């Protein structure tokens, strides 16, 4: 099927069985982003440990398979990583999705499976929504008010 590349099995698996979905008790950073183009909403909450690592991360929201799967994959890729490393990963992922650089294989976990999205420019916004929310959550204290915004 011509859409196999977009909807890879791994992507659909994250969509149907999202990891780390739900409310995080006592987060120390959170942000919610809204994509006005399609109505998708993603809220990301994090808690850091004393050693500067992302100890816990959860997401909530509603939207298409790509936005929800990307959020789920992101939480797996980020949990337990040093905050500085997470910052780099966000940059790498966003550049990868924009097709600027980066090999799919350089991305950790299930993230390379999102490579198929790059052929669908309007859907790239779906895939990056959670990542922009994470970026804001890392900057913000908890809890932050909802803001509109998109890539």
């Amino acid at each position: 099927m011509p859409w196999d590349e977009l909807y890879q099995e791994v992507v659909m698996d994250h969509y149907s069985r999202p990891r780390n979905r739900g409310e995080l008790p006592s987060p120390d950073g959170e942000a919610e982003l809204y994509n006005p183009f399609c109505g998708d909403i993603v809220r990301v909450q994090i808690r850091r440990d004393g050693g500067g690592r992302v100890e816990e991360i959860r997401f909530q929201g509603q939207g298409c398979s790509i936005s929800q799967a990307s959020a789920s994959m992101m939480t797996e890729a980020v949990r337990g990583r040093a905050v500085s490393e997470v910052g780099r990963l966000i940059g790498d992922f966003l550049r990868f999705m924009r097709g600027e650089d980066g090999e799919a294989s350089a991305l950790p976990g299930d993230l390379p499976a999102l490579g198929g999205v790059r052929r669908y420019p309007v859907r790239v916004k779906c895939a990056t929504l959670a990542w922009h929310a994470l970026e804001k959550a890392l900057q913000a204290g908890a809890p932050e008010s909802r803001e509109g915004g998109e890539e």
Partner: protein
Amino acid sequence: MLRAEEVKKDFPIFASHPGLVYLDNAATTQKPRAVIEALVRYYSTANANVHRAAYPLAERATEMFEEARRRVARFIGAEDPAEVVFTRNATEAINLVAYAWARRNLRPGDRVAVTLMEHHANLVPWQEICRERGAELEFIGLTPEGHLNLEEFEEILSRGVRILALTQASNVLGTINPVAELSARARRAGALVLVDGAQSVPHMRVDVRELGADFFAFSGHKMLGPTGIGVLWGRRELLEEMEPFLYGGEMISRVTLERATWNELPHRFEAGTPHVAGAVGLAAAVDYLEALGMTRVHRHEQWLVDYARQRLEETGVVEIYGPVRPRAGLLSFNLRGVHPHDVASILGEEGVAIRAGHHCAQPLMDWLGVPATCRASFYVYNSLEDVDRLVEALMKVREFFRHAVG
């Protein structure tokens, strides 16, 4: 009915994309060869700046531009071509009225009424002008079926409204509003009436005098014409009173170092060099539609939309929004359990072009209680087979998601 397969042959896009099922006509339509050739012919044989030069070529360009205006005026039943102002699109036409009339005439506490089914183009200008002038913006709500709530309409009108801005056909619900009746009541109550005709003029016979509105706005590209050309029709006596919207060349009469006086209608509202080729192309689109016959165009779309509704309902997994009748030739729907963007991406790969999103009507999405919908919108080149292809592709989406998501 139109013979869609024959009509399709007039549209080169379908030769470039064989098998394309184009169902995004409410966003923009494809262009017949006659329109494309009119643009080429204008630039190849008549191009010059209009209205001022004395040489024959410029006279020819001016004549073609003004002839286009006359044809468009006739198409919408305008009494006087001078009441037809060329704009970039319906959005600019509405903004023209918002700036040139409302911004100058609204006073604090005045009321402007719009409906809950407006496109952002007929909502946001009023929000901004009302905010600036301290006026109130009132919303006429909808019945559960998606018709205008006429009790609310009367109630809002009874409190005094300076201008009523409403769409003739909803780009999401497909509702066709009884504009002639509403205009008559609103004007009796002392309101000016602006009608957004972007989704009506391309699909049904429209006579602005019969509608009884004061202003009527539409876009060329949604009716087989080029992008970048639209129309504001306005009652002569109102346009005469209005100050210009944009200042510059063409729209002036006499300019001194201190000030200027304004040109006559409609040039007062057409500052700068206009989109001459666009107007000529729009007139070619009007000719093409008139040759098909607007009654037949409307009936053809009704036939398609009825068939599509029936096919979609038969699937048992599609939710359709908006009233059954009267309805424009479009359907907004959701496939149960699948986000509209996933539907549209997969349909796109299957060669079926539909739209997914909020359709520039976010307040209406809130009212429907959905973040977005899918929308299939029909036109003269669409056939029953196109509807079948749509339904087949939707069923593929359904199967895929059923297996992938479980």
